[in-house]
């Protein structure tokens, strides 16, 4: 072969070989026995900082490398990493099924390690155990118990001379009283799509899942639908709240962060949120601001009121983990009372397995009591058969608030999404 051609060919082959290496990704990252890798969503960072420090203290020489990212980004990245064999040893997963990174979705695909043999696997309360399992085996470990309710800025409430409502009529009255005082009763950050679901999630335990605990099974068996259930009452009450001026002027132009900031400043008296908002608002509010997470009433009988409460922060071990033993050791630490309580304490949540050594944050006392009294129902999406249902809920609520659809069409869209991935 001509000398020049040979040279050019060598360059081409070298380029091709180096590019092939690039295309293969950096999957050859080392996995020494003393280094654990972990990934979770940004919300989990404060708790992870605390438990990782404690784990390292108890295991000298062990290093834990963890990354956190926003929810959307986390789901996308971690799914890609799992399917390409580059995922970290321990991954944050959602309980149940209705989410692209939910326990049952990832376990079904074969990417989660079976943890059924671990001592804690059978210790979860009955409301949590099923959402950590797939085909009767335990694939994830719930660390916290979370709830959805109205987070009241009690300091601002006291200044306005108002008290949290305990009935539906009282709630509508509370909205007009707050308005008269120049305050927003419930700040709503509906521009952030996942926030849109929280009001139905806080109303349906009282309206749907409490009166009929077998509603998820009825839906799964085709005996019930969203459109022909009390979900329509919940959506109707959502719109009633909007019409009664319970929200600020532009909920669709307000995002999650802005909604929390309004409550922290006292411009709004409360926000319907997950318990993790208590920590986020505390960080922004002036020192000494009192917060309280309470159930949202949906009927005029206060004793009917229930809360959405379910497994919160949950982790699984990558079935192809480079350091499986260390990953399981970390999971055992998370599931120990020390690890679980530290995690829950830092993230302003409750431990997934109630225990006497946990000192509850006063803001979460009602959630803890409802958990003990069995007055909580799992987050609805945990029992939905695919991620499309929840995403459809986000979309139809925004359409409802914008007046672009009606309740019947909205719920029919959710029914359609439910049947698509069943």
């Amino acid at each position, binding site marked *: 072969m001509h000398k020049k051609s040979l040279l050019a060919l060598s360059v081409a082959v070298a380029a091709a070989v180096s590019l092939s290496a690039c295309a293969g990704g950096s999957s050859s990252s080392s996995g020494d026995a003393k280094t654990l890798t972990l990934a979770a969503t940004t919300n989990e960072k404060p708790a992870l900082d605390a438990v990782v420090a404690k784990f390292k203290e108890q295991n000298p020489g062990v290093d834990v490398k963890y990354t956190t990212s926003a929810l959307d980004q986390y*789901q996308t990245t971690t799914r890609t990493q*799992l399917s390409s064999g580059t995922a970290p040893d321990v991954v944050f997963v959602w309980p149940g099924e209705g989410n692209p990174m939910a326990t049952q979705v990832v376990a079904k695909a074969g990417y989660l390690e079976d943890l059924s043999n671990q001592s804690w696997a059978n210790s979860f309360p009955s409301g949590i155990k099923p959402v950590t399992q797939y085909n009767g085996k335990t694939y994830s470990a719930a660390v916290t118990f979370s709830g959805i309710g109205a987070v009241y800025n009690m300091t601002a409430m006291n200044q306005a001379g108002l008290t949290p409502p305990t009935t539906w009529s009282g709630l509508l009255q509370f909205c007009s009283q707050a308005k008269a005082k120049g305050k927003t009763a419930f700040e709503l950050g509906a521009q952030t799509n996942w926030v849109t679901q929280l009001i139905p999630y806080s109303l349906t335990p009282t309206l749907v899942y409490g009166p009929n605990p077998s509603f998820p099974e009825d839906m799964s068996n085709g005996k019930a639908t969203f459109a022909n259930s009390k979900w329509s009452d919940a959506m109707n009450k959502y719109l009633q709240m909007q019409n009664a001026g319970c929200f600020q002027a*532009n909920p*669709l*132009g307000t995002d999650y962060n802005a909604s929390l900031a309004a409550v922290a400043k006292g411009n709004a008296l409360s926000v319907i949120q997950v318990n993790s908002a208590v920590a986020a608002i505390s960080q922004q509010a002036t020192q000494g601001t009192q917060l309280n997470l309470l159930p949202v009433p949906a009927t005029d009988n206060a004793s009917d009121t229930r809360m959405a409460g379910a497994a919160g922060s949950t982790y699984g071990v990558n079935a192809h983990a480079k350091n499986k033993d260390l990953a399981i050791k970390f999971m055992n630490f998370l599931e120990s009372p020390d690890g679980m309580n530290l995690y829950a304490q830092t993230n302003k949540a409750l431990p997934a397995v109630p225990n006497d050594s946990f000192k509850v944050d006063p803001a979460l006392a009602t959630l803890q009591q409802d958990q003990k009294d069995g007055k909580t129902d799992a987050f609805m999406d945990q029992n939905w058969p695919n991620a499309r249902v929840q995403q459809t809920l986000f*979309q139809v609520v*925004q359409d409802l608030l*914008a007046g672009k659809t009606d309740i019947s069409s909205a719920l029919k869209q959710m029914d359609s999404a439910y049947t698509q991935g069943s």
Partner: protein
Amino acid sequence: MSSAQSQSLAVAEAAAPASALPRRAQKFSARRIGAVSWWFVVPALAFYFFVVLWPSIEGGAYAFTNWDGLSATKDFVGLAQFQRILTDPAGVGAVVHTLVIAVAITLVQNLVGLLLALGVHTKIKSRNILRVALFTPAVITPVATGYLWKYLMTPDGAINQILGFFGLTWLQHDWLGDSNIALWSIVATVVWQFAGYSMVIFLAGLQGVPEDVLEASTLDGAGPFRRFWYVVRPELAPAITINLMLSIIGGLKLFDQVWVMTSGGPGTSTDTMSTLIYKNAFQFGDFSYGIAMALVLTVFVAILSSAQYKLLGKQGGSK
């Protein structure tokens, strides 16, 4: 022969006019140069093949399967995913929004870019500073621009505050929360960012317009508009073609700003084909359907941009 002598001979041979060489030698030389040139292209082609073509082909194949983006198993389903697109109501809305965005951005961005280019193609003293200032938004990442404008467009944000300051309260809006105007707010953001980019391309075209022709037309009594239309515009034809092509492709593929500013909402009022592809592939766990939509978008972009290129080419746009 010394090496210096042989070098100077080679240079002389290369510099000699082609006509001075016999016909056979000319053909051989051209073929040889052509063959050598191809070898120079090989590294770039290899790079393009392994980084762009091969992953695209491999990824595109998933559109003919039912892979969910995670499972180890997948089945061949033929054209089933493409058939779903035809019956998906969300898909129709997204196609409409994509077309509206692409047309609006193409028209407004190029009009603004052209006006800016004409404005800074003058002898005003600050023209260089203006050129840099107007081009600067184009070098910011679209995600950063999206966050910036999302912040400015909040109900209590700077835009409404400025409008209020000037007593224009009737113009205050929930720019991203009102489903009737959210799409246009995104268009405005993209135009703000890339009008300077179009301006630079127009400016390059304007600098090629011969001064003597302009002077002659002025002496012949042509006013500014006639001068632009009959002298400047034909010279700008290649710049117009490239600008229209880039902006229509950019508009059809738009994702970053939409995702950051509205995520396709409120409801589905700003969903584009790109956001729908992302949602299906990564949020709904319907990866192969997302890929099928991406392939349709690719074909869509290719057809529209080549039709536009041919149309403008016929009008002398691809000089």
